[in-house]
């Protein structure tokens, strides 16, 4: 089943969820690591290149995910979930989308601050929409990128912890719905 129903997630939703999860965690780890590399490190140029390509990819997936979500029925929360749990989960989900969007945009502005585009896996170049950003703003954008990325990962850890709690303590279908069935 590719599409969602009111009680289950379809294959496309699940694939988008897990692929974005893996890419985002990878981007975070690589992002932290690459910014501290020595100039003579063999990965000094390679890692930022991959980071930017995957960053663009995750932005594309975010757009697809949003559109797909609008085109599909919304799987309803399990009846065993409390109201506040449902409210919080939905709020965090929206926050995830906004955070990913802002992290992606800030990353884009770091690299295009001088009007140069970003290569997408050596396949094509995403052009810059700005000719030049003022220095203060370019530096601020860099800090925003980092702070939002840390926020995203902290929330993702809580999100994962909540899923595991539902799976192992409450023994409900929350996590299973995102994996099989």
């Amino acid at each position, binding site marked *: 089943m590719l599409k969602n129903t009111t009680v289950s997630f379809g294959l496309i939703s699940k694939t988008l969820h897990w692929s974005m999860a893996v890419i985002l965690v990878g981007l975070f780890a690589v992002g932290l690591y690459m910014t501290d590399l*020595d*100039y*003579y490190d063999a990965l000094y140029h390679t890692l*930022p290149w991959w980071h930017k390509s995957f960053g663009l990819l995750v932005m594309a997936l975010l757009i697809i995910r949003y559109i797909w979500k609008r085109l599909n029925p919304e799987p309803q929360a399990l009846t065993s979930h409390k109201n506040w749990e449902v409210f919080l989960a939905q709020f965090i989900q929206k926050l995830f989308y906004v955070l990913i969007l802002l992290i992606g945009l800030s990353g884009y502005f*770091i*690299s*295009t*601050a*001088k009007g*140069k585009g970003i290569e997408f896996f050596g396949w094509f170049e995403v052009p810059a929409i700005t000719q030049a950003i003022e*220095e*203060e703003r*370019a*530096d601020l954008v*860099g800090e925003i990128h980092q702070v939002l990325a840390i926020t995203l990962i902290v929330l993702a850890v809580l999100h994962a912890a909540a899923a595991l709690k539902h799976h192992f303590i409450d023994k409900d279908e929350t996590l299973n719905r995102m994996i099989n069935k």
Partner: protein
Amino acid sequence: MKTFLKTTVKNTLLSASLATALLATSGLFAAEYAIDKKGQHASIQFKISHLGYSWMVGRFNDFDGSFSYDEKDKAASKVNVIVNTKSVDSNHAERDKHLRSDDFLDVEKFPQAKFESTKYTEGKDGKATLIGNLTLHGVTKEVIVAVSQVGAGKDPWGGFRRGFEGTTRIALKDFGITKNLGPASAELDLIFNFEGVKK
């Protein structure tokens, strides 16, 4: 004793006012020039080796300053320049961001770099040596700038202009910039081109 004191005070006052008058007159001869920022006939560039294989040239876009130059008393010439460090520009967004960070210029902590000359000696051929204090990255150090006067004269718009170029070589670590860029890139050349408009 009283009279002696009086005369001494008087003499001192006299010589002081004489000195002031003399200074003022010599000040009249020494022409003051403002660096032509408006028309941007001035630049501050830096040139540093990349791995030992090529030169990377960058510049500071925002700076201001003035100099004085007296044809009769060239040794009295002076230069003052203030540079806005965050205007560093190597035509590469990510590198510029890195150059502004605390790995290099740390522009948040040290928003200004400046140069104040202390000594100027000019030879007959227009080649000169300028000694002064360069403050960069919060560190002040004496540097020697090889200067040559490019030309001087009336401009077509009723003004008088005089231009110099200067180069000096500095070591990054002398100014507390310790980020390792490799053995070929421990030093860089600073290249100044200033056209001054007579005030």
